[in-house]
């Protein structure tokens, strides 16, 4: 068999690509501060894991750990008196990264199409892309949006992977939904341990929730326990099974199961006109 000979120039290109990818893996998704004109790096790079995240942010670390925090890398950039602290957290999966963004975004401000979702404010920018949650904090107090936008663009480009929000958030019906109110609850949805983790969304009449169990069988089991806990006041013909219940702190509840999904509405003080919405909710769940 005739041997295949790599031309010297191709070899050089291959070496360059390997070298560049190695450098890339060392620096990860962090930008080079100097990529934005006038800015330079201030101090060393930072790296944290679950064991020492407390050292960086004290009690705030708990808020990261419950969203499956894996590790963080950070850099501080400066331009004269201005500084931008950039932290990129790797979470357990894209859903957790997006959940972290949802939990920390300013719900009074609009979100933007950055990665799966993002926000650039005067002194702060956040976004989630793939399994990364990115935060930039600028000082001193003034409008830093121009610089933040440049760094956000650089970082977003350096992160490969998913840019679409989890499909599950589209399961919530849009009518009467309070905008930007969907949240990932990493522990105890509605404050009930039995609902381990899931999503909630605020409506003008109460709160919707959505939990996925491991299997339809385990969802049936959870429904049984929920009925015991909440007390079934009426049956609901929604999804595979459903019931109405009450709780002193969650008010009226509509709960239904569709396959492995458990969903419904809580904090219902007025139950009129939500039957159609509940049916639509069940239909949207895939």
């Amino acid at each position, binding site marked *: 068999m005739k041997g295949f000979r790599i031309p010297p120039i191709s070899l050089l290109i291959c070496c360059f690509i390997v070298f560049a990818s190695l450098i890339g893996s060392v620096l990860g998704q962090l930008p080079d501060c100097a990529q934005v004109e006038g800015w330079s790096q201030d101090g060393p790079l930072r790296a944290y894991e679950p064991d020492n995240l407390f*050292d960086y942010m*004290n*009690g705030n*670390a708990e808020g990261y750990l419950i969203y*499956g925090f894996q590790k963080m890398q950070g850099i501080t950039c400066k331009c004269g008196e201005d500084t931008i602290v950039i932290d990129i957290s790797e979470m357990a999966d894209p859903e957790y990264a997006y959940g972290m963004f949802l939990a920390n975004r300013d719900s009074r401000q609009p979100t933007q199409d950055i990665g799966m979702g993002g926000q650039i404010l005067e002194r702060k920018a956040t976004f989630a892309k793939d399994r990364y949650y990115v935060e930039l904090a600028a000082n001193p107090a003034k409008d830093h949006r121009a610089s933040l936008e440049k760094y956000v663009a650089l970082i977003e480009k350096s992160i490969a992977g998913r840019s679409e929000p989890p499909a599950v958030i589209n399961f919530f019906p849009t009518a009467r939904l309070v905008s930007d109110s969907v949240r990932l609850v*990493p522990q*105890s949805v509605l404050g*009930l*341990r039995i609902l381990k983790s899931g999503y909630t969304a605020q409506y003008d009449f109460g709160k919707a929730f959505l939990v996925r169990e491991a299997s339809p069988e385990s969802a049936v089991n959870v429904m049984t326990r929920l009925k015991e806990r909440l007390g079934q006041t009426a049956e609901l013909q929604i999804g595979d099974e459903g019931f109405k219940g009450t709780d002193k*702190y969650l008010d009226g509840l509509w709960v239904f199961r569709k396959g492995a999904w458990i969903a419904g509405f809580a904090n219902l003080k007025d139950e009129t006109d939500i039957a159609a919405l509940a049916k639509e909710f069940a239909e949207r769940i895939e």
Partner: protein
Amino acid sequence: MSKGSSRRTFLTTGLAAVPTAAITSRINPAFSQTASAQPAGLQYRVLGRTGLKVTTVGFGCMITSDPAVIQKAADLGINYFDTARGYQGGNNEKMVGAALKAKRKSIVLSSKTPSGTKEGALADLDESLRQLQTDYLDIWYLHGRSKAEEISDGFLEAQRIAKKAGKIRFSGVSTHSGMAEVIRTMIAKKADLDVVLTSYNFSMDPSIEESIESAAKAGLGVVAMKVMAGGFRRVREGDKLRETLSREGAMLAALKWVIRNENIHTTIPSITDMEQLEENMRAMTLPFDESDKQLLASQLDLIGPLYCRSCGQCRDSCAKGLPVSDILRYLSYAEGYGQFRLAREEYLRLPQEILQQRCALCPECTVNCPKGVHVAERLRVAQEMLA
């Protein structure tokens, strides 16, 4: 309590103190008069010189997702609630404010600012009040300080202005590490600062008791946080040991252990669901007993091979001359108390010839710890983590 006391002794001392707490209380008698179990299953103490009467179990709202849990806690009688400007990008204050709006006058509400400048802190305070839907905070903390110089003049001035304006009633400092130094500084500045929020749990170095006692004696209100975290932070999610540590009753035992110290006026365990709330409530009525001691002791046994008791018996026993107990202590700074920077700084101060040693290259470890610490393994971890 001497600094040489072991954690087990620390734990046992806690147990021994329980039946005689009323007689041998180490706290200022003026405060102990107010500590009493209430018929409704609530236990109150006075938060130092603030005079605020608080339940010994409070509520750390940081990772709570649903306001229903907070509302239920307030209805059940818990009256101390803690949040911070920085939690969940400010969204936590918003949720807490909505949950407690109807109960504002009957509860003690605290929040925190990370800002050490007067302007920054006061701006944070105004935003906290807006989000919490209240005109005032009962306690306003400077968030997460571990050194004397971090208790800034800017914050001290800000809290004076805020008190004068009626925006806060009392002020304090929260500290996760360097507690002794922070407390000493706060005592020295007693004209300004009223409450310390400090990490405190059964797995910590016994010397923390002295600092807490001195704070209480000086009239500071003492609020404990991370009442269980010391037991968990050492173990990663998914580790089998974590399941053991989080088994039923462990959290309650750890909380009871904290409350058995009457120098602790209230606690702020994180609470995410109704079940956890109900379990925590029981800490106010159930004594810290033999079964709790065994439960916590078993946890110490589990983490025992990891932690040096500083008995000094390994001195000069390393063939390569490593100061074993010092290195293990630095490791505990990082793993046990979250002070990674301090651990690395201390470690890197060791002589170069020590820093160049690698336990992995030694065929056999000559150090035999009488307490069962896996020395060679732990030193390897320290060399990988801190070098």
